[in-house]
């Protein structure tokens, strides 16, 4: 589902789990990223503030 919400950064593997493009989330995609994290049925995604 997260791959549907954020196709720019997430694709789904054969088992439905997210493959995330490495690197920081561009500012314009941040609200969508937050939504994708909240929407994951198993909370498999994490948005973190790395310094």
């Amino acid at each position, binding site marked *: *589902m997260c791959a*549907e*919400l954020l196709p720019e950064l997430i694709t789904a593997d054969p088992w439905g789990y997210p493959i995330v493009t490495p690197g920081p989330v561009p500012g314009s995609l941040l609200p969508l990223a937050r939504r994708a994290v909240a929407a994951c049925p*198993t*909370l498999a995604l994490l948005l973190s503030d790395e310094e």
Partner: protein
Amino acid sequence: MTALTAALQAGRVPPAAIVVTSSTPLWYLTRATGLVALVLLTLSMAFGLLSSVRYQRPAWPRFVTAGLHRNTTLLAVAFTVLHVITTAADSFVSIPVQDAVIPFISSYRPLWLGLGAVAFDLMLALAITSLLRTRMSYRSWRLVHWTSYLCWPVAVLHGLGTGSDASVRWVLGLTVACVALIAALIAWRLAYGWPENAGARLAAALALILALIAGGAWLAAGPLQPGWARRAGTPVHLTTGSGTPRPAITADGAP
């Protein structure tokens, strides 16, 4: 005892011609919001079940189901709150707000109203835990979410047991349609392969069938039979001499 009731008892006013009391608008609102809440809760449950079978089409991504599930639930909660408020505000029957959250303490149809309180409490728990999902453990959230399988049927029973409109054809039809929809979706979920244990699936399927049969039997013998209001626990002073509740009629007295 009002003059109207006295006249009724004396047989001078046919029951079917009872004029609306000043609280009728609230009475209509209570029934209306209750019905709408039930439909919304049914839709919410339906979208939840659709989610569990991972339904997906090119024009219907999974996040649409998720979003609709979320929105219908919030609307259902809103309408249930309205339903509680109109019920409490209605001075014709004394049902204070606490009767809506603490089950079975009401003096009006304690069992059936109490079921409404149970359903309402569960709805609040479901909604709040889901809003706080990212802040709680996944396991706990999932455990609470399971109670939705209890919440919805209890709400249906509350509607049939407390509501005075069970015998009205379109209301009955609507309720039956809701039950049919959810039963069909549950069957789909079982067929989809959950729970994994085949024995558990079979048991769940049997439980579903038994519940439908039992529900139908109860409906036929209970709310659909005359005299249900009294048997359900409506305080005597609210029923007419014949034991029927305030009829569901329009202002000019036509049935």
